[in-house]
């Protein structure tokens, strides 16, 4: 009888039990609702009135074995999409902004050549965000590291903190040559944004990746690293990849294969 006593406490009409059932149902509904919403997000892009979510982490995989010598289609595509003047055409090449650059490296011992694009690595623990005195350098919920030009004072501390030399300062007035989608201006620091305007539009890719695929090199893969079914996640599972300066423990959004 003593074993049955607690059962009678939890009789169907007990308020305790009702509260518990209510809570359990609410939790179950939340669980079924949230993944459903998530799936729609990933498949069709985010509605324009919804904020970027930390359920997504945008990332890029660079396959240095596929990256072709002498090809700089990714750099051209970036400059066209985002409206920065290519360094070769700039009046002051040494201080011209550069969002992405092509590196051609050679091992001095073996003479082996490696090609790769270098740009903002979209660190999870970004040094540029740590050092910014005004909070202008920030990481968006979906892992994209950006500069809020409304608060950037152009001190360039972030440029010094970045281990990848990924940021540039706009030294000269741009005289209304900016793209409507990509505001940029004198006295502000800027860098690769993972084509945030395209991401928010729901394109799910960047200008450099599109250009690389169009050129047939397929050296770049872009996608959501948090979604186990995305192409980038599958490739990252299969291929051995490296983070540049992995010793800094920054958890990079750009991973390299073949370096």
């Amino acid at each position, binding site marked *: 009888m003593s074993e049955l006593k607690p059962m009678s406490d939890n009789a169907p009409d007990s308020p305790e039990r009702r509260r518990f059932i209510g809570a359990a149902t609410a939790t179950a509904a939340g669980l079924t609702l949230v993944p459903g919403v998530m799936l729609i997000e990933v498949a069709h892009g985010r509605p324009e009135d919804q904020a970027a979510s930390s359920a997504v982490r945008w990332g890029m995989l660079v396959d240095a074995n596929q990256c072709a010598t002498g090809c700089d289609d990714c750099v051209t595509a970036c400059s066209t999409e985002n409206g920065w003047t290519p360094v070769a055409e700039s009046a002051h090449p040494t201080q011209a902004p550069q969002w992405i650059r092509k590196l051609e490296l050679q091992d001095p011992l073996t003479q082996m050549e490696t090609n790769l694009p270098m740009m903002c690595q979209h660190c999870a623990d970004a040094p540029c965000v740590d050092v910014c005195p005004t909070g202008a350098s920030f990481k968006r919920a*979906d892992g994209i590291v*950006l500069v809020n030009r409304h608060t950037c004072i152009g001190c360039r501390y972030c440029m010094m903190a970045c281990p990848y030399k990924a940021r540039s300062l706009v030294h000269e007035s741009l005289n209304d040559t900016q793209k*409507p989608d990509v505001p940029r201006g004198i006295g502000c620091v800027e860098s690769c944004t993972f084509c945030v305007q395209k991401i928010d539009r729901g394109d799910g890719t960047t200008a450099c990746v599109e250009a690389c695929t169009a050129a047939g090199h397929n050296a770049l893969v872009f996608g959501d690293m948090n979604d186990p079914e995305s192409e980038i996640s599958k490739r990252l599972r299969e291929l051995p990849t490296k983070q540049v300066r992995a010793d800094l423990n920054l958890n990079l959004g750009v991973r390299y294969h073949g370096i």
Partner: protein
Amino acid sequence: MKRLLALGAVVMMTAALAWAGLDDDDQPRAGGAPRPVIAEPIKGERCVEDEAYMRRNHMRLLDHHRDETVLKGIRTKKYSLKGCIDCHVSEKTGSVATAKDDFCVSCHSYAAVKIDCFDCHSTKPQGPMTTQASNAETAHDMHGMAEGNQ
């Protein structure tokens, strides 16, 4: 004598009031700053808010929207600077802030308030300038109005 003085005072007051009344009309006065030319928008039935509200508060709406967009990635069309430019662009210059009669500049120079927006933002609409309601928000409004008429 006292009565005469009082009468004189009343006459002078009336004259002064009448003169002040004359001064109140909207005729341009010599030496006054020329009133801003406010160009009609090239498209759209109405603004996103009341005209009077927009004149006083557009900067608050823009500031709020800019933070939502930059920090969170919310890119709704209502209250976006690009939305303003799409409708208020000048047909002559293709911009909102190039010539002194362009929409943003005409008022801002009258009020002597410097605009920083266009140090970084483009003053031109995206793509070819169009008088069609291509903006999703406007299209939605027009759709709503059409439904209301039925």
